[in-house]
């Protein structure tokens, strides 16, 4: 891939934030700006999680191994947007009222599950460097980073439980996540099943 491509993708990933900034600057965040920011950062967290999860299937199915070099970036952008989402919640929604936040996390299951999804991303962000891959060793690092499945699942459930009646949008995320996780199940289970019954050769185990 050409050298300038990665910085361009990096800048593109900052697009959603730039859009929020532009809309804030031009007073175009709607009648309820804080709700707009909350929803927008939440949406982009889910999108980047799904994009990160799409890298492996995409690179296997299309035979484009270079795609893997973008996975960490997308994962970290998911973390970046979830931090913004979380900051919006604790600052603009709860105004750092610890008591109220604790009540939320324990009483509201959509907050509980969303918060869990966020917590699960923290070790992944910390251990995303090459140094940490070396320190943990490839196998253990990979096992740890499978947490992203739980995190993405938690994110979609968080959205699903939040809406009042129209599940249309969370359903879209759920379908995409279902396909991405379904691919992995097929890749893992398929050959094992086939191994027992018919063929001896196994498909390559996906790194994600």
């Amino acid at each position, binding site marked *: 891939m050409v050298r300038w491509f990665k910085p361009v993708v990096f800048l593109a990933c900052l697009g959603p934030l730039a*859009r929020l900034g*532009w*809309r804030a600057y031009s007073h*175009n965040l*709607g*009648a*309820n700006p*804080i*709700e707009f920011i909350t929803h927008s950062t939440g949406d982009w967290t889910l999108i980047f999680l799904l994009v990160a999860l799409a890298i492996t299937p995409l690179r296997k199915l299309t035979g484009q191994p270079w795609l893997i070099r973008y996975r960490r970036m997308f994962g970290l952008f998911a973390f970046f947007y979830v931090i913004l989402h979380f900051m919006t919640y604790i600052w603009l*929604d709860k*105004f750092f009222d610890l008591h*109220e936040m604790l*009540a*939320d996390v324990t*009483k*509201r*299951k*959509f907050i509980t599950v969303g918060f869990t999804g966020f917590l699960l991303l923290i070790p992944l962000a910390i251990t995303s460097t090459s140094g940490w891959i070396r320190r943990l060793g490839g196998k253990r690092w990979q096992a740890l980073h499978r947490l992203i499945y739980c995190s993405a699942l938690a994110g979609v459930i968080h959205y699903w*439980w*939040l809406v*009042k*009646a*129209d599940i*249309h949008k969370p359903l879209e995320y759920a379908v995409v996540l279902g396909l991405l996780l379904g691919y992995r199940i097929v890749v893992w289970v398929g050959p094992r099943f086939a191994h027992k019954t018919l063929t001896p050769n196994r498909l390559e185990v996906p790194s994600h």
Partner: protein
Amino acid sequence: MLIKKAADISSSEITPKGLYLNRRKFLAGAALAGAATALGKGVSEVLSPSFRALANAKIEGIQKSPFSTTENITPYNDVTNYNNYYEFSTDKEEPARLAKNFKTRPWKVTIDGLVTKKQTLDVDAILKMATPEERVYRHRCVEGWSIVVPWVGFSLSELIKRAQPLGKAKFVEFTTIYDASQMPGQRSHVLDWPYVEGLRMDEAMHPLALLCFGMYGEELPNQDGAPLRIVLPWKYGFKSAKAIVRIRFTDSQPVNTWNRTAPNEYGFYSNVNPTVDHPRWSQARERRLGEFSKRPTLMFNGYDQVASLYSGMDLKKNF
């Protein structure tokens, strides 16, 4: 009452209010939109200025009301571009655009059930029943945001008295129009259409309960429930049914749409109550549109005069 019709000037010649108020912004927006079109659709969505409502006919002879609050009125643009109106869309910004061509005339309202005289009235006949009043009410949505709106209408009791309900009528049920050809949201099954709401008779007869057909001195914009809606300031917003075509008197408690959809989350009464949480979020505070901090939510949304309607009732059970 009179809704003044501009006799000598066709409506197509009147400059839409949004244009004359925001001409510069509109032009700037148009320029940006043009540039954005060149860049691609995604960008034009990002930059397009929010849709602005058109001017509606002014309502003449509006009286002031002692029920009005002196709190700051929420800007017209917010009240007309942030609407929970699932008949058009579940997206709050969409009803302004999707309701633009909604037909509010001719409009009939059927009054039936346990009444002396079952009848179907033209909405303009209903509008003439009493003197229009401006009622500046707080309006609290079950989702946790609130607005202050100068509604125009008169007490619902004026209509109920004229309908002469029978002694055994204990409840009133309101039905919103069901017309999927005009209301795209009704083509999806988000809710059970048509939208139904209901009140106990004493609630409906309370002077605060407003039969509403205008706001900000003008006829109601379509996205705010034209041509006829109710406004119940001490209850969560969804109780205030919009675009009403039927008012039915019954002896049994109506099943309101949101209660049918999620009975554990939305009750029949749905009085604003900071001490009873929605199962999924707290109702203790609210965000008044236009304000940065959240403010505490008041019992009955601050309309203590309705408290006697519920004396002796467990409001945690009857949420």
